[in-house]
């Protein structure tokens, strides 16, 4: 196994939010002590509901935003300070894809010009080489040069997302952060783009951080999946068995809330209450007010992310598994 490309160690990020026009500003902990490791060529999936801090994590990993605490290391080196030459060199090796391809493209430029732009910005190759690279990229995302001459408005949603992907790949990045890349697409188009991402990853040896609320898509593309709730990772484990045998009550609820055609689920877990407000984080385990299994200890003590055997880690006082035995043995 090759070493990790991205190492994130206990990053935190909070924002000041004012409640009401004259209210006091309160700190909103968007991300709170998140640690992740992504080996080269692998995909880490990040799932969670809105406000869970998954997008903020993505932005910090890319160095778009500095963490308040903690550190991100890329290919063994810490992220350079924004704006420096070292930072720019690192940034050329990582790219990002967002949910809304139309918002990420300039409506008044032919898409081929937009794919070429990163090459111009980073000064890669001669003009002739850049033209050739654009054609190559269009082919890679299964489009033709004729598509390249069009404007974003003349392309379908799936084609636009392919253009965004082609542009992200222009500088031959090693690392790609995808934030809900297929959420706005129809099911059949979603499958095309997911397959394309898997193919490109295999061909180019890309490392991915794949952020989505869609458990199915995340499982399809990831090696390891982390579940976030209110800025913290509550469960992390291999994609193959995390959703088959979720340990954390929140993961269990998420899996049970993801209906499958052909199976009428008896006994779906329906969580009470609304998704929590990141500005009013509950004491103890942030999930305890909605947790069907919460005990007194959950309201006072924050559970730490603990290994429970296999490569699974769970942050829950009630998590079963082989943890108790290891503790006895120790």
């Amino acid at each position, binding site marked *: 196994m090759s070493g990790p490309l991205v190492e994130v160690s206990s990053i935190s990020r909070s924002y000041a939010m004012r409640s009401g026009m004259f209210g006091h500003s309160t700190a909103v902990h968007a991300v709170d002590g998140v640690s992740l490791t992504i080996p080269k060529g692998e995909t880490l999936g990040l799932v969670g509901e809105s406000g869970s801090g998954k997008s903020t994590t993505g932005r910090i990993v890319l160095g778009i935003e500095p963490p308040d605490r903690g550190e991100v290391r890329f290919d063994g080196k810490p992220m350079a300070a924004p704006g420096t030459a070292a930072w720019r060199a690192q940034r050329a090796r990582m790219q990002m894809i967002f949910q809304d391809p139309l918002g990420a493209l300039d409506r008044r430029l032919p898409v081929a010009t937009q794919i070429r732009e990163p090459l111009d910005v980073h000064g890669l190759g001669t003009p002739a080489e850049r033209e050739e690279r654009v054609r190559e990229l269009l082919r890679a995302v299964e489009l033709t040069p004729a598509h390249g001459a069009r404007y974003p408005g003349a392309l379908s949603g799936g084609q636009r997302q392919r253009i965004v992907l082609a542009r992200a790949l222009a500088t031959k990045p090693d690392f790609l952060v995808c934030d809900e890349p297929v959420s706005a697409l129809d*099911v059949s188009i979603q499958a095309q783009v997911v*397959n394309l991402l898997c193919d490109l990853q295999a061909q180019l040896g890309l490392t991915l951080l794949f952020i989505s609320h869609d*458990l199915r*898509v995340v499982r399809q593309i990831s090696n390891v999946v982390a579940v976030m709730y209110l800025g913290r990772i509550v469960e992390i484990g291999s994609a193959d068995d995390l959703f088959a045998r979720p340990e954390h009550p929140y993961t269990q609820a998420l899996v049970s*809330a993801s209906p499958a055609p*052909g199976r009428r689920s008896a006994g779906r877990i*329906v969580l009470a209450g609304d*998704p929590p407000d990141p500005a009013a984080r509950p004491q103890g385990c942030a999930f305890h007010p909605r947790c069907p299994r919460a005990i007194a200890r959950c309201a006072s003590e924050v559970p730490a992310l603990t290994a429970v055997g296999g490569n699974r880690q769970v942050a829950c006082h009630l998590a079963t598994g082989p943890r108790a035995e290891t503790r006895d043995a120790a």
Partner: protein
Amino acid sequence: MVTPLVNIQGLNVAFNGVPVLRGVDLTLEKGEAVGLVGESGSGKSVTWLAALGLLPRHASVSGSVRLDGREILGAPAGELDRVRGGRVAMIFQDPASALNPVLTIRKQLCEALALHRDLSGEAVKAEARQLLDLVGIPDAARRLEAYPHEFSGGQVQRIMIAMALAGNPDLLVADEPTTALDATIQAQILELLSSVRREMGMAMVLISHDLGVVAENCDRVAVMYAGRIVERAPANQLFADPVHPYAQGLIGALPPLDGPRRRLTAIPGTVPDPARMPSGCAFAPRCALAAEPCGLAVPSLAPIANDRVVACIRAEASRRALLGIAAE
């Protein structure tokens, strides 16, 4: 035979001469839940907007929509006003934009109640409180005085459901009711919809792009593609054994949540532009099974089993061979 609650026959809709709905037939029995699935632009929402006379003036609508045997397509405005919000209620994907931000919830709920139930004074207020209780808004009496922005997304959708129930409808048309909501909140809203439906004996049309949501909450499902219904079947049969290649494609494109991971079977190409519809079967250019006759005539919905119809000449053939009916 009992008159169905809603009977839509040959519904056509065109915007500026471009047909977007091309002959939709759909019936709905009392108390039944029917799902409508398909991709964006397939005509799922337009079917119901047209049926209820909610499309803009430049849309030309033809066909027949009968509610309890009475034609409502092109009915006078006064009659439609009694149908809409009264007998048939509709909720949408974006509940926040359906509420007036400068009026309290009480004002908006009471308006609906006064219009459709002829209630007034204290009776309206009591009923409004009861509706909020029914949809699970805690502390209903106090929350009535709140404005829409003081509620979370899931709660606003609950309030929309309460408003839809104000007229005691026989049919609720829910157009992507949970698409904008988080997964755990989606589960809450779907649970609420099914419990309300049981309690009130109400029929429901659930429009969704999410096959899982439809599979779990509907008795029968119609799959739409490019302005037509291509397959109609009981929910459990459709998802266990889809016949139309498009329905098969939709189900194959959905990544599984357990079991081994396989490559997704994506449907190649994109939905055709309504202004440049291919001749014959609209799905043929993307279909793996397409043969020459597919481009000649539009396939009509033909029965393949009890309560199952499909519009595909190829699927019919393969199905017949499968069942050994070809011999007869």
